[in-house]
């Protein structure tokens, strides 16, 4: 009896119709891939720009008389860089970086289901 039902069930699974309108699905998948690709490229460009700006700001940061003449808020800049380079600043930065890393799934995410 059970084996009869097993066979019936296998047959029913095999006969279950495949969802229709494959072309529309292909189009939608293509659009989703295109969006994902655009997002990743945009993210890459933004990261490159931010890195360049950061390096430029750290190299070209005006000091002394130049900073005074152009009104560069040196005190604030020094405070920000001091905070960022402190252990607490690094911890906060690392935590935020980890959050971005996980949320954006830049390097994929584990699939293992813990039980």
């Amino acid at each position, binding site marked *: 009896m059970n084996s009869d*039902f*097993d066979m019936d*069930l*296998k047959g*029913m*699974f095999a006969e*279950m*119709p*495949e*969802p229709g309108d*494959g*072309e529309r*699905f*292909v189009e*939608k*998948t*293509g659009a*989703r*891939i295109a969006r*994902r690709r655009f997002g990743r490229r945009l993210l890459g460009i933004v990261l490159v720009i931010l890195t360049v700006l950061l390096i430029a700001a750290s190299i070209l940061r005006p000091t002394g008389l130049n900073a005074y003449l152009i009104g560069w808020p040196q005190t604030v800049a020094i405070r920000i860089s001091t905070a960022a380079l402190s252990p607490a600043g690094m911890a906060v930065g690392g935590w935020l970086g980890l959050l971005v890393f996980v949320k954006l799934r830049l390097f*994929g*995410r584990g*699939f*293992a*289901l*813990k*039980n």
Partner: protein
Amino acid sequence: VISGGSKNTLTAATEAAVVGLAMTGDDRAFEELVRRRQGAIRKLMLQLCGDRVLADDYAQEAFVLAWRKIHALRSPAAFGGWLKRIAINIHLQHVRRTDLAAPTDDEPAAHPATGSGNPAARMDLESALARLSSGERLCVALSYGQGMSHGEICEATKLPLGTVKSHISRGCARLRRYLSAYEEQRE
């Protein structure tokens, strides 16, 4: 191996050749793979999650992930199984919050298709599957729909063997009850 990737050439090419081309980053080749495999993956997702809209969404997600990772595929011949594993993992990611291992009540809340009192309510395998718990549906679909052994299901879902067996046993019993009740109602 084909090159250039015109639509007619791709349609006529073997899957291994198309996969090989897709692994080099050819978008048309990947599109052809989606066209060839979408039916099976959507059907699998429908069996796993029991909802057509959700199934299509997860199937798309599986193809997007496959597109991202295809360069890491070891052999073009393994594409089918690899894609199926990705699809199962996508489903598992979405049901992770619910407890797959938890047993369910014998009589869950009435399914919309049958609980409305409408004698003409449609009750086929798809709606019967939708009445099972996530864990039961997953294990039954992988066992009967995909022909996977209990060991393979354990490996794919990371569920203990005993849980897989009990899900299949309980799921089958419930499917049998739902389907036979429907047959009687129809007669």
